């Protein structure tokens, strides 16, 4: 039963999110709005029900598996990737490195300023 309860809550939030996204024509994926709805709901409720935690954490623990079917879709785009192989490779590596460096540096700086003296 807990699994069903937890899944129902997740699906209901996703459903509400989809309705909201379609209804208001906002350019945000339904599940993302569902996440916000659940977050607000948890804030009101004041705790995470055990059934929801079990189902939700179960899903999140296997998040990587869920990417596989979509990832296999790369095979359909072999032509487009082949055409743009160099731009894609350079962009992925270059931009990921830059993003890591900039984010880490900014957060480190900001955090140090919040804790006067910082860690040395």
């Amino acid at each position, binding site marked *: 039963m807990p699994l069903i309860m937890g899944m129902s809550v*997740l*699906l209901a939030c996703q459903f509400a*999110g989809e309705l909201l996204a379609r209804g208001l024509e906002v*350019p*945000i*994926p*339904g*599940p*993302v709005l*569902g*996440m916000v709805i*659940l*977050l607000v709901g*948890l*804030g009101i409720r004041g705790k*995470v029900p055990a059934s929801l935690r079990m189902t*939700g*954490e179960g*899903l*999140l623990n296997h*998040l*990587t*598996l*869920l*990417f*596989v*079917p*979509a*990832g*296999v*879709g*790369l*095979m*359909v*785009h072999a032509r*487009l*990737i082949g*055409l*743009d192989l*160099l*731009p*894609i490779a*350079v*962009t*992925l590596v270059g*931009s*990921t*490195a*830059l*993003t*890591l460096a*900039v*984010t*880490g*540096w*900014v*957060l*480190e700086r*900001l*955090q140090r300023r919040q804790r006067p003296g910082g860690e040395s």
Partner: protein
Amino acid sequence: MSVVPLDQLWVYLSGHPLLSLLVTLLAFVAAVRLNRALGGTPLAHPVTLAIALLIAFLVLVDIEYATYFEGAQFIHFLLGPATVALAIPLYDHRERIRRLLWPLLLACVVGIVTAVGSTLGLALLMGAQRETLLTLAPRSVTSPIAMGIAEQIGGIPSLAAGLVLLTGSIGCVLGPGLFRLLGIRDPAVQGFTLGLAAHGFGTAHAFARIGAVAGAFSGLAMGLTGLLTAFLLPLIVRLFGLP
């Protein structure tokens, strides 16, 4: 009792959702084992390995992706509720988040603008096709969100998912070296950075290699980045004058 010829049996099985489901799970298990045998290197991430194994299998036995997806969609569908479930770790760490709210938000926005800006800039510079460009744009966001965004701005969702996966594994390979280079030792900062740049992969990596605090902040960064990117990306893309 007569035995059905093997080729006839194969025709039945290869079109059945059961086969793709089973093969997906088996490929994943094999990939996890293989990765462990290789010492858990992020260079051969289980997901990347599983995808490579499955593509090789499908090409070998000549099954179309559409046929495969008919079965695999049952796994794929769970991405929706999994995205909703990201609210749970966010809620768990609300106290810490409230304390660090402004630094985190600011770092997140700077990170997203860097990610999307440098992606579009580099890809434009390298002369990528328009479709590739729009598909690359959401690549630092966790897959379910990235696919939704790609669809919205005119990219290709399934290609976006693949590029997101590649981004994740690249981030895990580059991260540790960059942190050493920049002298970033705080696990919370390391985790947040990995979660922002390498989403689910980064989060899994942070939990496994750096620790629980890093993992929690990484999960937060992944959720926050997904949420903010969904709002920001259409605006940034318009700024580059794309669609």
